[in-house]
């Protein structure tokens, strides 16, 4: 076991994937000498060379579009999008090409690509640097979408995503890059928790909190605080946003009868709506209260001096739990 930050875990996971498979490439803006603006690719170009860790022109559609061609050629590109709000120039290539190549070819060709996107707010940044665009991609058939929430998952999930033949959008909770956790880096990849599975991180019988990415830590903290008041909250890390792994969620809600979904992205037509709908379809007779959502507001991401009021926090989560118990 090593104690690592989430960012360093990603860095080591990328390193291990590159060691395991010489076809793995890293592409993006400033990923080479600089090691990326968050240093997630730190040291990789030095050790693997600039043919495998590629500083690209500053053009996101170009990065993703050429990564498609490299994948057709047999490579496994791992693309870094510098910030969430910069992915949109590549949106056409991702939605119209990455997501559809396998389907268009009737399964004759795959694009084993990973597109890494640091996402979410809480770092005091300017516009376009704090967004949560996961619903756009989760809505698109042909893409798989995951979000890591802790160092151990970061280390394993990035390797699993790279090893997968599915094209995967990989969301990283940028404000959690510096949080530390235990990682068993010596274990084999095959022993890792399955990539597209949700996971119960804390057991409790009174209500279920559902989150992914940066909000998992918030929900765990909320559960700790609730326990002091005698309320036992179960916390589930969804981990895979497309496909959603709902079986553990249904099991939990049948037990607790109450569920609160938490994400930073605006609530309107968001992941929380899909989760709530699925719960109501499957657990209708177990529910003691409607599924509630705690999300960012349906506004553009606000200026950083007020972002703490925009982002769901421990108090808003507990307030929603209280409302759930009010039914």
């Amino acid at each position, binding site marked *: 076991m090593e104690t690592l930050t989430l960012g360093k875990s990603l860095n080591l996971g990328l390193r291990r994937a590159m060691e395991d498979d010489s076809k793995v490439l890293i592409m993006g803006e400033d990923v080479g000498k600089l090691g990326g603006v968050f240093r997630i690719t730190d040291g990789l170009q030095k050790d693997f060379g600039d*043919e495998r860790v590629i500083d*690209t*022109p500053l*053009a996101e*559609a*170009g990065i*993703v*579009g*050429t*990564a*498609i*061609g*490299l*994948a*057709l*050629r*047999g*490579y496994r590109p791992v693309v870094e999008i510098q910030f969430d709000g910069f992915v949109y*120039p590549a949106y*056409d*290539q991702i939605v*119209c*090409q990455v997501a*559809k*190549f*396998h*389907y*268009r*070819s*009737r*399964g*004759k*060709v*795959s694009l*084993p690509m990973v597109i890494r996107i640091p996402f979410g707010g809480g770092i005091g940044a300017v516009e376009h640097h704090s967004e949560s665009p996961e619903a756009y991609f989760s809505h698109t*058939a*042909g893409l*798989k979408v995951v979000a890591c929430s802790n160092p151990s998952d970061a280390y394993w999930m990035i390797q699993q995503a790279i090893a*997968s*033949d*599915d094209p995967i959008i990989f969301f990283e909770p940028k404000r959690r890059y510096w949080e530390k956790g235990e990682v068993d880096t010596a274990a084999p990849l095959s022993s890792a928790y399955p990539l597209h599975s949700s996971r119960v991180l804390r057991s409790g019988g009174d209500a279920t909190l559902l989150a992914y990415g940066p909000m998992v830590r918030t929900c765990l903290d909320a559960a700790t605080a609730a326990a002091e008041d005698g309320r036992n909250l179960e916390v589930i890390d969804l981990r895979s946003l*497309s*496909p*959603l*792994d709902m079986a553990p969620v249904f099991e939990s809600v049948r037990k607790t009868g109450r569920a609160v979904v938490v994400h930073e992205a605006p609530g309107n037509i968001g992941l929380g709506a899909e989760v709530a709908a699925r719960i109501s379809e499957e657990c209708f007779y177990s529910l003691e209260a409607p599924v509630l959502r705690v999300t960012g507001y349906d506004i553009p991401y606000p200026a950083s001096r007020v972002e703490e009021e925009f982002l769901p926090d421990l108090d808003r989560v507990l307030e929603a739990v209280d409302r759930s118990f009010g039914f």
Partner: protein
Amino acid sequence: MTKVERAAARRGGKRSGPPEPEFVQLLTPEGERVSHPDYSVDFTDDELRGLYRDLVTVRKLDAEATALQRQGELGIWASLLGQEAAQVGSGRALRQQDMAFPTYREHGVLYCRNIDPIMPLGLFRGVDQGGWDPVAHRFNMYTIVIGAQTLHATGYAMGIVKDGKVGDDDETSEAVIAYFGDGATSQGDVNEAFIFGSVYNAPIVFFCQNNQYAISEPLERQTRIPLYQRAAGFGFPGIRVDGNDVLATYAVTRAALDNARHGQGPTLIEAYTYRMGAHTTSDDPTRYRVASEVEAWQAKDPVVRMRKLLEKQGIADEAFFAAVDEQARVEAVALRERVLSMPDPDPATMFDHVYPNGSPLIDKQRAEFETYHASFEGSH
């Protein structure tokens, strides 16, 4: 003047077609062989007859597909009429190991890759969306989003460099050709492909068929300078070729491909041609261009000039031309019969191949779909 005539007049005051541009030409519209200081071809008589056969055949197959659409057998067709020389010349210039990234109109290139012409017709009939292995055929699936494939082509070419497949040996070194049209040159993707191709010195030929129109929009809506001159700004050579001259198109493309495979990086080729038909069978070109313009281009027909050459050189007789026409007719009939016998897919197959590793969500929906349909069995 009609509105369309006024528009034509604004484009240079001529109603007899655009001014003759500077381009590489080895065969005039009258069928005269001319020389060029930088480009030449040395074809045997057999090869010249073969090129003629290609031109006639791809035109005939194209006409058959247009007819099939008119008869309701294809949902849509994007005709290559008028662009046969640009496609046959560039298609035959490819070496076996080269990779092509087409738009949705490169039926002639596909034919010259020795690929069964039935392959893309499922897409136009609506029974699939391509469905072939791009790498096995050395020919990517048709790409419908304008210009998107130029980036895929560039990435593929970057992979050739990484694989160490750039070099002096023409038989093993690889190159890529990316097809696109004049309209696509306004797309960000195409300009980004130029940049990536340039800075990574990728072995790629950007082959622009300038057929003068992006659906209804004339070239002046895309550019103020000749398209081939754009290359200079990206740092690689650009050249304009007579796209209705199969010999010149072959010579220019073969040279550019070989330069690319030898490590000299990209070339932009502007094949100057004309879309004699509609953009697709859904289009009505009489709304935006005048008959006189079309007639002027008719006089530069790529097939006719090749026939004139064969006649002038005395290397083909009436019997040969008749045999070529007959062979093309036979191929077209065979194509028609195969299109008509293309079955509609089993609806449940729409759930296939969304992901290489599958998805429980789709498995569930497929099961629900099948249960729903099974519930109707025996009820009618």
